[in-house]
Structure formats: C-alpha cells, structure tokens
C-alpha cells in the first residue's frame, strides 16, 4: 500500500510535468510560427530551396559544411551552422543567438520574422536577466557557448574588454546618426565596442502641486524643505535614499566632487576624487540635512518612491523607470535639470547597446545584422516603446513622449558613467561612505577619506 502511494506520487509528478510541458508548448505561439510557416513562405525566394533548382548539377558538392565550424578555408554556399538545439529556427538556416533582457527581447521579436524572410537568417532570441548577461557572457563566450550578439551597458566595458569579449564595431556612415555621448560611452581604449540604442540618466522630479517652481540650488532646496516640513505639508521634502552613489552623483558633481580624473584616452584609476573638497562639501551638505531632520538613514529606494507616490515627498532624483508608478499614483510632476551649487549638477549617463561576441564564428554576420537591421528607425522606435529610454539613435527621437524628451534634455548635462574596472570598487566603498554619513557614524571628512583610501588600495595605487 505504501509502495503504491509512492508510485502514485511519482507518477503524478511525471504526468504533471508532461502536461505542463504540453501546455507550455502551446502557450508560446510566437516562436512556433517561425518554425512552421517560415520555410514555406521563404521557399520561393530563399537560399536553401532556391539553390536546388538553379544549381541542380552542382548542388551536391558545396553542401559539405554543416558540421565544420570555421568554414574559413573552403568557401561554400552551404549554411555553416547547425540550428541551435530547441530553437524554432528552420533547419539549415544560419542562426544568430541573441541574449537580451525582457524589454529588448520584445522589441527584437517584432523583426524576427522579417529578418528570416528577407535574409534567411534566423534570430534565436534568448531572454536573460540584464545583470546575468554581464556575468554569464564572460564565462560563456570564451568557451564557445556564448551568444553572437548580446545587450549590455557601457559601464561593463572595462571588464568585458579585458576579457576580449566585445568585438570592435564599425558603424560606417551610420555613426553620424547616433548621439555622440552614446558613442563616446561605448568607446573603450579608442575602439567602438557596441552599437548604442538607449541612454538613461536620472533627473530632478518634483511634485508640481507641492512645488510649482523646483529649487535650482541645494541651499534653496534645504530652505524649502525646512519650511514645508515645519508646516507639515510633507513628511520628507527630498526623497533621497540613504546611500547609492548612482542617484547622488549629480549632487556630488554640483558641489564640485568627482570620482575619477580623466585623461585623453579615458579615466585615471589612481586619480580618485572621492576625498576632493567638492566631495567633502557634498557629504557635509548631506550631513547637515540629516542633522536637521530633512534626510533620514531609514529611507530606502522603495521608501523614497512610495513617499513620492503618496505626496509625502515633494522632490526626488530618479530615472525614467519610476515614471510609470508616479503616473499610476496620479501625481502631477515636473522633470527638470538637477539643482546646481558650486556648478551645475551632472548625472551619470548610462548607455545601453548591442555588442558582438568576438569569440563568435558569426561576427561579421552579427555586425551586418546590427548595422542593417538594428540601426534603423523602426527597430530603434520599437526599442524605445518597450524600454521607455531616450533612443541613442537620433532619427528615432521623434517618437519620444514628453517624459522621455524631458529626460533626454537632462542627458546633455550628464557625463558617461566611467567604464573602467575600478568603478566596481567605487560602488561599494563610496556607497558605504554615503551610508555612514546618513547614519551619522562617521563625519563627512572621515567617510570621504575612508572611501578614497579603500578605492586607491583596491586599485593598487598607493
């Protein structure tokens, strides 16, 4: 009896997994049509089928290649790549494997069929978490298991380039169509290593009902905060999360602080500006705000945004990703330049783009696909629609809505996020320094000194 129970359990599990597999198969109709329809539709015009009638006598000989990966020695008309296992690609068609996150994947999906029909190349779209792409690609690419094309951010370049992963990109005449800041951000060591599609940066967002004219300096902000919090209009005027150098870079730069000094070719990892006077001034301002009860160590990213959602915070520094929730919450808000102080505040500009895997045997094909299909208005617009970030491709900027236009206006005041490897030390050390000031466990001078020393030590600069 017990034994029977067991077999029932196991049988149930197996049946359940099979049922689910069956349902799962039915629930994703998108890749399937590509498999069932495409060959038929493509047959009259496309290569594999077209060859047979025209080249009938010689058709045997060139079809040697399928298993031969480089295909470099012997030129041949035969498709060189076996289709990826499990992918919905027609047998024999060359395949470009693309790793992209959900939003980018959705945009690429719109051209999958078109590319197959027009070129006979099948796009094998694989959704990978954005952060996972970075960690997995360095491991997978050299092992020959990586994608042909992947999506990434410009601040990964230091690490990826050291591993030789991204192939040098040649945009040809199309380079002129891209926002120069975005190309600069994807240039590492003098080489363009990606095709940018979006720029993103934070801006200063204020609740228009509470603050009709946003403050333009941090002194002004402080005064306003003091007044409104004293009056009880808001719980915390400035919704700034404790920590996180990314959102606070525009404050740091407004006070004259910097992270790494620049050279002609890039950044100097040993010129660490975290203990510069400007950076200390910025931390001192934070310190004063905390002491006056205008900022709190208890505010996290979630807290800050929720406070803004409910009208309990009046202004904050945030990016396009938060806009939807503000709209859902029915808040009227303005998006504008970040306040200045000693100088205008300059946010980090992050740039996202497509990169070609240098270890891929299909690099040239991948590059051709990117320049011919991705660097086009419809695809860039689709990428904008799913991602809501201002396009790096200027001709596609026409479709931007008000929000994106407002963020794009702030981009001009920004500077690319440093793409050197040493940046990873900044995130933890500088982040800790800011937190200790918020928590009042270190003075601004101590915190700045600690962070700068930590980064220098990590980079081996002492």
């Amino acid at each position: 009896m017990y034994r029977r129970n067991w077999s029932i359990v196991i049988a149930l599990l197996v049946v359940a997994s099979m049922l689910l597999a069956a349902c799962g198969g039915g629930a994703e109709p998108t890749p399937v049509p590509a498999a069932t329809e495409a060959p038929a539709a493509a047959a009259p015009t496309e290569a594999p089928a077209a060859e047979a009638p025209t080249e009938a006598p010689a058709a045997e000989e060139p079809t040697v290649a399928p298993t031969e990966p480089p295909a470099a020695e012997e030129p041949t008309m035969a498709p060189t790549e076996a289709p990826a296992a499990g992918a919905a690609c027609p047998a024999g068609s060359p395949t470009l494997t693309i790793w992209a996150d959900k939003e980018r994947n959705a945009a690429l999906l719109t051209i999958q069929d078109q590319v197959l029909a027009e070129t006979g190349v099948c796009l094998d779209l694989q959704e990978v978490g954005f952060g996972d792409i970075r960690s997995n690609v360095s491991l997978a690419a050299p092992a020959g298991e990586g994608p042909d094309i992947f999506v990434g951010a410009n601040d990964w370049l230091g690490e990826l380039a050291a591993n030789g992963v991204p192939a040098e990109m040649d945009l040809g005449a199309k380079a002129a169509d891209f926002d120069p800041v975005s190309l600069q951000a994807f240039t590492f060591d003098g080489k363009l290593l990606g095709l940018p599609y979006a720029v993103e940066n934070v801006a200063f967002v204020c609740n228009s009902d509470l603050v009709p004219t946003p403050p333009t300096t941090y002194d002004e902000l402080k005064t306003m905060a003091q007044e409104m919090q004293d009056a009880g209009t808001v719980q915390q005027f400035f919704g700034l999360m404790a920590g996180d150098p990314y959102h606070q870079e525009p404050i740091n730069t407004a006070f004259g602080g910097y992270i790494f000094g620049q050279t002609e070719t890039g950044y100097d990892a040993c010129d660490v500006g975290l203990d510069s006077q400007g950076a200390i001034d910025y931390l001192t301002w934070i310190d004063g705000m905390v002491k006056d009860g205008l900022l709190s160590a208890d505010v996290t990213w979630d807290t800050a945004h929720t406070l803004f959602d409910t009208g309990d915070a009046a202004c904050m520094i945030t990016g396009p990703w938060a806009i939807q929730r503000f709209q859902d919450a029915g808040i009227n808000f303005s998006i504008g330049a970040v306040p200045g102080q000693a100088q205008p505040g300059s946010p980090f500009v992050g740039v996202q783009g497509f990169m070609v895997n240098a270890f891929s045997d299909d690099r040239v094909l991948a590059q051709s696909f990117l320049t011919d299909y991705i660097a086009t208005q419809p695809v860039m617009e689709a990428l904008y629609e799913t991602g809501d970030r201002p396009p790096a491709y200027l001709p596609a900027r026409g479709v931007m809505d008000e929000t994106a236009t407002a963020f794009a206006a702030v981009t001009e005041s920004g500077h690319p996020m440093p793409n050197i490897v040493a940046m990873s030390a900044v995130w933890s050390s500088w982040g800790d320094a800011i937190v200790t000031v918020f928590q009042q466990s270190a003075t601004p001078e101590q915190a700045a000194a600690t962070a700068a020393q930590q980064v220098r030590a990590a980079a081996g600069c002492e």
Partner: protein
Amino acid sequence: MAVPTAEGTGGRKASRFSQDGSVLGLLVKVLGLSAIVGLLTYTGWRLLGDGAYAFAAAFFITALFFTLVFVRKSTVPLRWIMPGLVFLILFQLYPIFFTVYTAFTNYSTGRNVEKPAAIAAIERLTYVPEGSPAWGWTPLQADDGSAAVWIIDPADGAAYLAVPDEDLVPAAEVNGLQLDANGAPASMDGFTVLPNNQRFLFVSANQGVTFGDEERGVQVTSSTEARQTRQRYVYDPELDAMIDQRDGTIFVSQMGIFTAEDGSTLAPGYPVWVGVENFTSIITNPAIRGPFFTIFIWTFIWAFFSVLETFILGLLLALNMNSPNIPFQRILRVLLIVPYAIPAFITVKVWVGLLNPVLGVIGSAWNPGWFTDPFWAKIGILMVNLWLGYPYMFLIITGALQSIPGDIYEAARVDGAGPFYQFRRLTLPLLMVSIGPLLIGSFAFNFNNFAIIDLYNSGGPPIPGSATPAGYTDILISYTYRIAFGGARGNDYGLAAAISIIIFAIVATVTILNFRFTGQLEEVSENV
C-alpha cells in the same frame, strides 16, 4: 568486517531468502560494470583528445576506482557507495580541485581563458592596410558551387572578379559580362549572380574567406562592404610573444598578458601559475586583515545561533505535531513548511519590507534600527533566518521521530518515566544520532550563507573607517566575496579561491572537532 558478506553466508542454511549467486546475476553485474567503466573511459579518452587533461584525469580516476572496487573482494562495502561516489567525484570533488588549483594561479578578469584560446582570440583580430579601399561587393556562385565575389571600388569604379586563391580578374577580362543599370553585374560566364536577399547567407557562409590572391584579396566585412583585411597579430612561439603585423610591435607575455614595451596590452590574457602569491597577499594585505577579526567572530555567532534557533523551533514543532490525535495533522504540517516552499529571495525581500522603518508593518511600529544599528541589524537577520530555516529542521526531525522505535517508550513508561524524562533520556539522544551530523552541516551551510546576508542588507550597516568595505553583518564569505569580485581590478578568481581554501580550513577544523562529538553518539546508537 563485522557483518558477514553474502559470500560468507551464502547457502549455509536453507531459508526464506533465495540465493541469487546465479550466472545471470553475475552476467548482469559484469555487463553493468563494463558499461559504466566503458562510458567513463570513453569520455575520459575524448576529453584527452580535446586537451582537457585535468578533467580527463577525473574520469580516468573514477573509472579505475570503480573497477578496483568491483573486482576486489575486500572492497565489497564500497560497492554500495560507488554509484553515489561517481557523481560526488565528478561534480563536487572536481570543482574543489579546480578551486585549489586556481588558488595558485592569477586567474582573474582579463585572464580568463586558456593560453591557446587567448592566442587564437588575439590572432583573429584584423586590420585594414592604410589606403586600401572599402569595396562594394556582389555575391557570386561559380558553376561548381563555390563562392566568389564581384568587387567594385566606389571611388573610381574599378571592378574585379575575386575568386579565392586566384589573382583578381579585372572587369574587362571577364567573359560574358553584362552589367545592370546600377553598374552591378547581371550575368557572366561560369558564375551566377546571386540576388541581394542572399547577402546575409553569403556573409554567414564565407566568414574569414579571402577572395583573391594573398596580396590583394578581400574579405566581406558587412552586407555591403568588403575590405582588404589582414591578420593583425601573429604568435611567435619562440619569443612567446604576439607580433603586430602592422608596425612590428612585439607584445611579450607577462604574467599571462601580452604586453608591449610601452605598457599597452592585448586582450584576452590567460592565467599563469603564481605559486603561493595569493596566500601571501591575504596575509600581508592590510586591507584584508583590517576588520577581519570582527567579522570572524560574528560569522561564528551567526552560524551557531542560526543552527541553534532553527533546531529548537524545528524540534518544538516536530514534537508538537507528533501526536496522532491532532486534527488536520497533514494540512497543518504542510502549512508549517510553507516558508520552505517559497523562494528565499522573495521572502527575504518581504521581511526587509516588513521591517522597513517607514513603510513596513513591523518597522513602522517598532524600529530599533533594523538596518542601521549594528546590534539590531544582527538580531533582524537572525530573526529572518529563523523563519527561513526552521522548516528544514522540522521536516527532518519529524522524519527522525518516526524512526525511533515505539517499544522503547513503552519500556520507559513501564519503568515509570515521565514525559520530560523520556524526552531528555530517550528522544533527544536518539534524535542526536540521526540529526547530529546534520547540525554540523547546517553550521557549515550558514557559515557560508552568502545569499541571505546579501539580500538582507548587503552586509550593512557599514563599519566606518575600515580599511576595506565591510559591514557589521558581513560574514567571512560575503566580505571576501566583495574583496575578490568587487575590487578595482575586476574578478580575482585566484584570490577568491585562496580565500575559500582558508575558510575551508576554518570550517573543517570546526567540523572535525565535532566529529568527536558525533563519534560518541554513534557508539550510543550501536548499543541500542
């Protein structure tokens, strides 16, 4: 051996057990054994062919071990263990060896492929000689099926037929050439002009193919352009260096990275053996020694209390639910293990949210500094771990209670022992026999429980003024992880491996000390 084996007792006594020392049984054994050993050897052999020596060795050793165990009579008990051991060796021990080996190399960002792969990757880089044109091209197919291109210089309109390994043929010498309105070829003798929609397929099929002779040949570099690309770097095995074909610069291999005299480097590099350098850097680096002691102590406290609290609650609940009289016993038990059934990375985030001082249900009512106070952050994280961890203990103890023979209790009851006495003198010792090793395992697990530390508060609140980024709730593994992977030089796998060996030494010491404890318990059980 204390217990007689089949060989010893077989056929001694007619009994209710049939003897199966038959030919068939033997045959099955031999066939099964040779199949497994054959498979392992085959895989090892293929690996050897691919140059994966260490990995091949793992397979050969496993195969050899397997054979020995099944051939020799004295290793009969090992035969039972062998099937599991195969997996353990390949997927648990091999990674450990890999880690130990890595600890003696400088494997890191920028040095993450083997030398041959690094050389191959660099040799794939190309350059275009100055002044050579960006040709336009048209795909052609020769009558024998091989590929060729028609190239045209957009600057002066000079056009050629380019066939691999042959001199470029000027347009004027091509027989039967017909041009279309755009100046592109429409037809010619011996070749078929492929339509434009085949350009991508052509590119795909002919990557790396040079059309034309060695000197002037071109490669297709995009769907419309062909360039006179040349290999940029060539490896010179004698110098162990890459030579830049463009200007003759020599990049000599230094610690796994090809470096020129002016300091410029080529990517990727490859790991090289550095001896004990990673270990000495741990000892001598003030950044690593910095807050080490504080973190070390907290790691022990964390692991110890995590085990203790989850064990106590798990035990309490298991005992509580172990009465046959409880209604809905099965449903209630299911509800008690719910925390175990939901992925930790959402529940930890929910706990963090609940403790949030502004928004959280708990935090807004009572906030001693769940994330900002060094002491209360530790309490908070222990609290969350209790919730996450007790169902595991509950499950195991529930199982263990079932296998304690009921007649023991009856005897005790006859002797007049009360329930508390029964628990202390019978249940607990017997439980410890089966649960003891598990507690050690749980200790080791929590000792290295990076995920929850990271999810709760990323190790924070930060320790002000420490030489290297560290927080009050950081445990050794999260702290060192940050040093090895969050440093300014990218991911330092060599250092990470060295650190994990040191952590292993610590945990192993604790574990071995515990063996004495469990060793005693084992003797208790043998007296049962």
